[in-house]
């Protein structure tokens, strides 16, 4: 379980996150949705500690993350996997080296054991023979899959995904969504996905939090979202012409 209480984040005097309190369920795929610039990436990065929050507290299970020192935070971060919007693979390293890096730094495994784990993760994301490729040689979908493999290599308890579908075609997006959902269930990970893709919401969303203008505007399940009377949420969910027609026929 991940809990944020009264989170405030201020950039240059502007409250980008304003008193956001959220609870993300353990072992589920939790979604943060909202328009571009609504503050969802700032919320995600605040939860993992990449942004220091100005007010409030963040809890990982019962551990108050915001009150931990540098070393204790580092220890918690080893339980966190994160998939960034652009993949954030190290350009100068091969796929294998990218995935192996956390193993090299934080485990005492032999090279054979590490390679076995790397190959297992690559196979899990359906990229069994990509070990020696560089990020520049990969497609957008492959980069995301390698990022997933790197995120799960240390068996994390928490998985954070920042717009994992951005820049991908609808088919590949579904593949990535399903992969995230399968991994969440398989390893009982608490997953938080940041997205503005309604397909993702309907495919994998178990708990959904809607952020609007830096505030938590709505939360519920994917079944509730279609029947909400929240105007801002409806504007977001039914923004496309196709969605509007579908709503009219409901």
């Amino acid at each position, binding site marked *: 379980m991940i809990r944020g209480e009264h989170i405030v984040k201020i950039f240059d005097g502007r409250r980008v996150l304003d008193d956001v309190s959220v609870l993300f369920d353990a072992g589920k795929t939790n979604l943060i949705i909202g328009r571009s610039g609504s503050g969802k990436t700032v919320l995600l990065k605040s939860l993992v500690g990449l942004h220091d929050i100005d007010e409030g507290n963040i809890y990982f299970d019962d551990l108050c993350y915001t009150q931990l020192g540098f070393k204790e935070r580092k220890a918690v971060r080893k339980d966190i996997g994160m998939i960034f919007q652009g993949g954030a*693979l190290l350009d100068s390293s091969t796929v294998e080296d990218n995935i192996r890096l956390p193993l090299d730094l934080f485990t005492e495994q032999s090279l054979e054991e590490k390679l076995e784990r790397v190959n297992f993760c690559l196979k899990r994301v359906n990229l069994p023979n990509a070990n020696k490729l560089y990020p520049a040689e990969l497609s957008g979908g492959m980069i995301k899959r390698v990022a997933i493999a790197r995120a799960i290599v240390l068996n994390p308890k928490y998985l954070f995904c920042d717009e994992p579908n951005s820049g991908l075609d609808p088919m590949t997006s579904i593949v990535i969504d399903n992969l995230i959902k399968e991994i969440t269930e398989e390893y009982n990970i608490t997953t938080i996905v940041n997205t503005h893709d309604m397909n993702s919401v309907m495919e994998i969303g178990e708990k959904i939090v809607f952020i609007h203008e830096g505030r938590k505007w709505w939360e519920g399940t994917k079944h509730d979202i279609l029947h909400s009377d929240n105007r801002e949420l409806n504007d977001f969910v039914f923004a496309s012409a196709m969605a509007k027609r579908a709503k009219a026929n409901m």
Partner: protein
Amino acid sequence: MMKFLETLGRYCLLMSKVFSRPEKWSIYRNRIMFEMEALGYNSIGIAAIISIFMGAVVTLQMAINLESPFIPRSLIGYATRETMILEFSSTVVSLILAGKVGSNIASEIGTMRITEQIDALEIMGINSASYLIMPKIVATVLFFPLLSILSMVIGVFGGWLVAGFTGIMMPDDYVDGLFYDFRIISIIYSLVKIAVFAFLITSISGFFGYYAQGNSLEVGRSSTKAVVASSIAILIFNLILTQLILI
């Protein structure tokens, strides 16, 4: 002034993070070797080319300006040696490397910052500042003095070549001048200087890259700032170290 002090404070804080205990020495050792090749070994060419031509030009200028029967011709070799050892092989080579290596470091780390690669390292629990900057600093502080020695040798050789091929002086006179009043302190002074300059170039460029923000345009600006700041720092520390060591 306040902005300068704030930047200096951030630089010091970053350095304290850079020199905190590494996660695993073996990984850092490999990275230091890699950086030695990337930042040091790959700079041999430019250092050698510039040194040979500068040595030749210094010898020519000395020969043209010391046309007097009262001044021994061997003084040309002596002056070339002193110029190459005291200033060129450390300060001028460092200024050139600030352009080549400094911009490389700032743009590499800056690109990693804006493409969230540094965030990815942090999330893995890695001290990104130490992992990215420390191996570069260690590699350059160890390797640049070797470049300096190479520059001294090649520069002096350039002078000997021009003396021999142009006939402006006898090569034997040039060699006599090279060995005249040779003091080891000059070499030590030069090597200490370039080791300090190596630290300045790498740490300042790493600092500007690490705190790059925005887009590729900002990375370019950070790279330029890194070169300018490194060059100014080299000139200031050149003055300080000369005062401390030679006077």
